[in-house]
């Protein structure tokens, strides 16, 4: 329970942190301002192998699945 509350707090901090930067989103980020976004660590999936392994583990232990995209094939298992 404490763990969940802590996580909820972290999510709020993360969201608020994102919201503070949204003011500047009212003006488009110019191409020459994207040096930070172009970095490897800012990509939506910075580590494909980690992403793949995690999806395999949680798919086999939980009922929910997907959300990040389509394709990739199934496993033939139920």
């Amino acid at each position: 329970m404490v763990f969940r509350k802590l996580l909820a707090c972290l999510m709020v901090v993360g969201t608020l942190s994102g919201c503070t930067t949204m003011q500047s989103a009212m003006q488009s980020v110019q191409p020459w301002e994207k040096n930070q976004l172009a970095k490897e660590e800012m990509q939506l999936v910075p580590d494909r192998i980690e992403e793949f392994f995690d999806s395999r583990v949680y798919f086999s232990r939980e009922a929910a699945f997907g959300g990040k995209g389509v394709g990739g094939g199934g496993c033939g298992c139920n």
Partner: protein
Amino acid sequence: MQLTKKRKGETVRSLLSAASASLLLAVPLANAEDAHQHHAEGAPDQPWRVDVGTMRYSEKDRITVSEQNFRARRELGEESALTLRADYDSVSGASPTGTTKIQTTSGASGTAYMAHFQTVRNAVGVDWETSLSPDAHLTLSGDHSSSKMSKSSGIGATVARDFNQRNTTLVAGASYSVDTIDMDIMTELTPSDTATIRATSEKKDQIDLQLGVTQVLARGTLLQVNFIHSHASGYMTNPHKLISVVNALTGETLTNSPLAEKRPDTRYSNALYAQINHALGSGVLYSSYRYFQDTWGIKAHTVDLKYRQPITESLYVQPHVRVYAQGAADFYRSMLAVGETPVYASADHRLTKLQTNSIGVKLGYKPAFGGELTVRAEVLRQNGEQHPQDAIGVQRTADLFPELEATIFHIGYTKPF
């Protein structure tokens, strides 16, 4: 004064060259891999990118999975790229069958609470990415996997279109897969003294549809929102899972128990996923949330947080926390009372109310010979209802959902060349 002018001139030149470099880095954000390859690595002189990884997943007193994954991506000119993927995994150990923990009759084989098994699976896949126009990209994918008793094949297509100076990307995708199971299957929800075993090939089809948007919110903030709708139809029962039938008052198991489970043959599901990547100082905070619901009655929430913090220029640390909570499927039953004849019933733990908490840390290191080496360790704990309301008689004294504890250890290496 001259010195000041010179410094100003250098500063301006420096800014101009940085701006020029950044212009080349105008990121089409729909396809992260594409963006990564074209821009983060400055790809033209490094058309290849290879990723290899090995993972060991170990559950306490249960199964162990050893998995190897390989990806190779090759730029084909400036307009397209081809990715080949391969995966091999082996699973061995004990897994819950779905039967009650307290066995009050001496049943035949298959009534054990846990069953040992061993299997290996091979999978291959290919992705082909190409530009449809300066602002639009198409990705086609194909996958196939097989194990001793099952096969799966799938195809997919995704189109991404950039708008608003590439600050907004809309994504639409669709995929189709067919899974088949070839094995001996016992008649579902039928007492073992009257059930028959059929050697059969059962099939399941699944269609996934995706609509998504990626939005640059600020110079260091990126938002992705995805909606995925899935429709699966066909055989979705797990032929390895059983459900106990007990005396309605005492909870004692019957001699012709357990039964083979049975699940509905259609499943519609929706997943809404949101992710924010936010640069915080020299680090990056990755936060995501997913809401999932389906026509089996399952509702689930997933929160995932990672924070990547550089320690030196070639080393970073990335702690990770994940919390997952799901409700039970409508047809989940920890056991059945004698005389009950439900249309569907499953005692598979994965379909009951449960929560998974994961915590881990990853280290990334860029060695002098190039590429990036990563090492990751995680601990996962899954808890459910140990004494569910539908437990009967003596079964109420048993722990019907023992805590699942597992560790994940993963080593990966990535190198463009």
